[in-house]
């Protein structure tokens, strides 16, 4: 589905990603793990056009998308969340989720200022769609709240809802359960599995090993920008390189 080839990215001479290649098979959850600073977020940013990779390619079913600007990415059916919440704090929950439908929204200038009935109806349909998504994430009661006033857990769910509302084929999740309590994490974990069962291709970045082992179909391990291991959860669990990469830094990552 999505294949990443020889992806390389340097920040001022320091490699954050060095020649990383792997595939995300369709309808599977591929999980990217690695110690802090390994380059996981950088990889997602390169794939989604937020950063421009120095070398290498990203292909979606054979089409090169590695150099597309970030605003084109959602048109390929790709959606993502950010590690440090990237919501619009002064907009309401509903508006935040609606913004996830930009790809379908009417953004023509003339239609926007005259808002003919067709445009209004279309807007109403999008609004209903967004409300449905809020229901699914138990946020309907908060629809009119400005996101800046919500708890952290609620915000994380708003971001998930925003990513999913457009019905993407591919989803990148950057640490979706970081900072959540056990109950909330479990709910997100279930949601992720449910999405996979619906046929989504998911690239997950996560530090929570219980969750990772429970949901992943395949795991890719990065360390200091290098891909050091790749395999099923069972293989990764016993891979000495991985254990070393983590143990060597256990004090920092724990």
């Amino acid at each position, binding site marked *: 589905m999505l294949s990443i080839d020889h992806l390389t990215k340097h920040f001022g001479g320091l490699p954050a990603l060095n020649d990383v290649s792997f595939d995300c098979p369709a309808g599977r959850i591929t999980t990217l793990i690695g110690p802090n600073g390994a380059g996981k977020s950088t990889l997602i940013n390169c794939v989604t056009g937020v950063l421009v990779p120095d070398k290498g390619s990203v292909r979606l079913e054979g089409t090169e998308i590695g150099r597309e600007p970030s605003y084109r990415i959602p048109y390929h059916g790709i959606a*993502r969340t950010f590690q440090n919440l990237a919501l*619009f704090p002064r907009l309401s929950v509903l508006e935040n989720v609606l913004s996830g439908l930009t*790809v379908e929204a009417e*953004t023509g200038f003339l239609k926007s*200022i005259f808002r003919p009935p067709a445009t209004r109806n279309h807007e109403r349909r999008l609004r209903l769609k967004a409300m449905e998504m809020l229901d699914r994430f138990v946020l309907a*009661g908060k629809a009119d709240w400005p996101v800046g006033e919500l708890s952290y857990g609620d915000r994380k769910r708003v971001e998930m809802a925003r990513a999913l509302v457009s019905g993407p084929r591919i989803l990148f999740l950057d640490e979706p359960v970081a900072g959540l309590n056990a109950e909330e994490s479990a709910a997100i974990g279930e949601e992720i599995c449910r999405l996979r069962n619906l046929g989504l291709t998911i690239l997950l970045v996560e530090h929570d090993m219980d969750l990772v082992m429970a949901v992943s179909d395949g795991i890719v391990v990065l360390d200091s920008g290098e891909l050091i291991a790749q395999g099923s959860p069972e293989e990764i669990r016993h891979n000495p390189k991985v254990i070393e990469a983590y143990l060597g830094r256990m004090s920092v990552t724990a």
Partner: protein
Amino acid sequence: MSAKDKILYFIWLHRTGLTVGALGLVLGFYPLFQDNPYFLGISNLIGIYLIVTIGLNLFIGYAGQISLGHAGFVALGAYGSAILTADLGWNPWLALIIVALLVGLAALLVGIPTLRLSGHYLAMATLGFNIVIYTILIQWDKITGGPSGFAGIPPLSVFGMPIDDELRFHYVIWPLAIIFLTLALNLVRSGLGLGLAALAQNETAASALGIKVSRAKIQVFVLSAVLASVGGSLFAHCFTFVNPHSFSIFTSLELVTMVVIGGLGSVWGSLFGTALIVLMPEYLEFFETYKDIIHGLILVVVLTVFPQGLISGLRDMARLKILQRRDIAQH
């Protein structure tokens, strides 16, 4: 739903349209109660500035950009209309439209390189633009009349009737202002408006959702310049005389003050802010000396208490109160 609830729901659903309608009614009948040309002149001035500040608020308040040079666009509109009508004998309406289009084009050319810039770079570029325009107005006296101004601009006319007194101008400026107000309200409720608000708060996220940030910024910039130009043209025909001092950077700062006081991202706030700043010298006449200090103080106090401006700040506060009360009622 009881009948009362239904009515309330209807009002809530159509609140924007109803408010605009009410404003239109009030202004339509206003001259019946107030026929003093002096006061009509003041409300006309509010209408003119409102057209400018609506556009500026879309740029500053919604899209979260900064412009300290919009008086430059107003100047281009005013002098453009003055030259085309007084010197070349064009029809004022045609001149207004052509000038607005040209100013839009100029804004596009200025905007494409400038809007890549952010924050203080944009502030500087727009200030610089204003200073350049202002200096040209002063120095190029063969065309602009120099520091003493440009006189003899013909008034507008509608179906052959010259719009040459305050009452007639009232019925020209306010319908226009209300039309622009309505279009702006439409825009901010559309997908495009949501995109603008989004990019103002987080460009990376907005872009990742499919909003073409640079294009959206340029669109509002051009729109705000066009509105500024229209305001300038109307200003020129209203007073039949313009001079460069009406378009200095201090005017730009005053326009920004109107927008900011009223509220970043509140179209209605612009109406409030504009009215306040235009009316204040009238009612604070004996404070004439303290005018600047009062302007500045209002700006500083409002921004310290409500960083998003007065109307927006109060609106957000009220909204939160209502939501909290509803929340408590439910639990």
